[in-house]
């Protein structure tokens, strides 16, 4: 099967990016290097091609009711022009996907889903809808870029206007920009920094959309905007303590185990799919997600065992050397008895024991 390409693929290749297969797409993992791209995002601004992400459009008079049932957060409280983080759960309370919901109008929602879960999520939503909304897989209809970092707001002000630059976190507006009509500009992101995400509608304006990448780099150049690949996207999200599906989240993990209680409204009117199971499982949780920081230079990686006093108590789900933290960091599922901050852990790094301790997340505070 040949890899799919985002509208900006040719620009990545021309810039000499190292390309890797990711969720069926040929994606840039790095341009200059993970560390310089990471630090450029924290220090100024980074430009990310996230067009591989999927989108499901949910519309109709029953759209709100449908999403109230399918998703974990308070969809009814989401106003048009607002965005909200949600978990899509199964009957056992496991996470089918973590999604961001953008309410375009009273009866019109855009659900941004993980690239690898696009087909699974669309099938799940259509099969488990109780209320009769209309679901359309719009994954091919949108390109997406993220501008993240403390200077992102200056770039967006130059690109749009003061109203957009003044958007509150998790709000969005629609604008025509750089020759592309109907762009959703949202103050959202995944890096732990202030920033914006641009949803660019492709149909009928593919060429204009493709030209957005170099135009943004040129416009952002005075503000230090640098292209950033998936490598630094991962180290940035990990320092920010954000979960990544397939690592911290899975069909077997409840959102409460993953520390997503703040988006899990167990008592919302009518409940939601999976809520009963989550409620039952919460009293007997066998594991809970914690952040840890290493005291040596050894880097814990996904799948490594976590020990306390020689006994296995958990497993690492993500680990890296945090470029801004300056130390090995990671997330791990551990027994609740050893989940308290400052608990001393040992991580088995290929047979060598690496000391670490539980720390609060996020690991850093961004702009």
């Amino acid at each position, binding site marked *: 099967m040949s890899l799919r390409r985002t509208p900006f693929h040719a620009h990545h290749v021309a810039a000499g990016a190292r390309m890797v297969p990711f969720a069926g797409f040929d994606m840039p*993992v*790095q341009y200059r*290097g*993970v*560390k310089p791209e990471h630090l450029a995002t924290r220090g100024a601004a980074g430009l990310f091609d996230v067009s591989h992400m999927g989108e499901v459009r949910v519309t109709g008079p029953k759209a709100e009711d449908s999403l109230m049932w399918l998703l974990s957060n308070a969809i009814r409280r989401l106003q048009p022009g607002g965005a909200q983080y949600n978990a899509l759960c199964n009957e056992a309370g496991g996470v089918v996907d973590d999604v961001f919901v953008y309410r375009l109008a009273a009866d019109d929602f855009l659900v941004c889903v993980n690239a690898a879960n696009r087909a699974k999520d669309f099938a799940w939503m259509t099969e488990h809808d109780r209320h009769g909304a209309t679901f359309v897989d719009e994954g091919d209809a949108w390109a997406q870029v993220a501008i993240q970092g403390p200077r992102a707001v200056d770039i967006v002000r130059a690109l749009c206007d003061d109203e957009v630059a003044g958007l509150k976190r998790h709000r969005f507006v629609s604008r025509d920009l750089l020759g592309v009509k109907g762009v959703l500009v949202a103050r959202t992101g995944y890096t732990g920094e202030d920033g914006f995400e641009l949803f660019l509608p492709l149909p009928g304006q593919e060429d204009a959309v493709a030209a957005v990448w170099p135009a943004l780099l040129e416009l952002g150049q005075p503000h230090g905007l640098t292209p950033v690949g998936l*490598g630094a996207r991962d*180290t940035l999200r990990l320092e920010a303590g954000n979960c990544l599906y397939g690592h911290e989240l899975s069909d077997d993990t409840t959102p409460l185990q993953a520390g997503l209680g703040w988006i899990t409204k167990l008592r919302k009117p009518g409940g939601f799919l999976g809520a009963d199971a989550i409620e039952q499982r919460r009293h007997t949780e066998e594991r809970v997600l914690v952040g840890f920081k290493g005291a040596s*230079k*050894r*880097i814990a*990686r996904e799948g490594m065992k976590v020990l306390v006093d020689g006994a296995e108590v958990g497993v690492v789900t993500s680990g*890296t*050397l945090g*470029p801004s933290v300056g130390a090995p960091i990671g997330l791990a599922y551990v027994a609740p008895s050893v989940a308290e901050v400052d608990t001393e852990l040992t991580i088995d790094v*290929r047979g*060598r024991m690496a000391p670490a301790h539980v720390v609060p997340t996020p690991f850093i505070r961004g702009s």
Partner: protein
Amino acid sequence: MNIPEDLLYTDHDEWIRVEGNVLTIGISDFAQDQLGELVHVELPEVGSELGAGDMACEVESVKAVAEVYAPVAGTVVAVNEDLEDEAEKINEDPYGSWIFKLEIDGAVEGFLDATAYAAKVS
């Protein structure tokens, strides 16, 4: 790709400088480029005795870990402690940034010269 003529190379992308019965060992330009930004080198201990093909140490980058092997049997007689704090020196200068020195008894045979190594990694 930089492949100096005066070195030997292994199938695992180590380079070897032979000086009498002491081998100086590092990883090649190709290896450092494949690994990306190195963040940690787990150096072997001076005095440790290694068999041919034994793992001598690990080099870890932002995204991957690679093992470095003893190309022939011998005793580790020196390690480059500068790399403990500055693993990225291997990225900047892979042939200047040796990792360890191995004192050997036997012969150094069966490795690739620069031409053969260039053909392998091209």
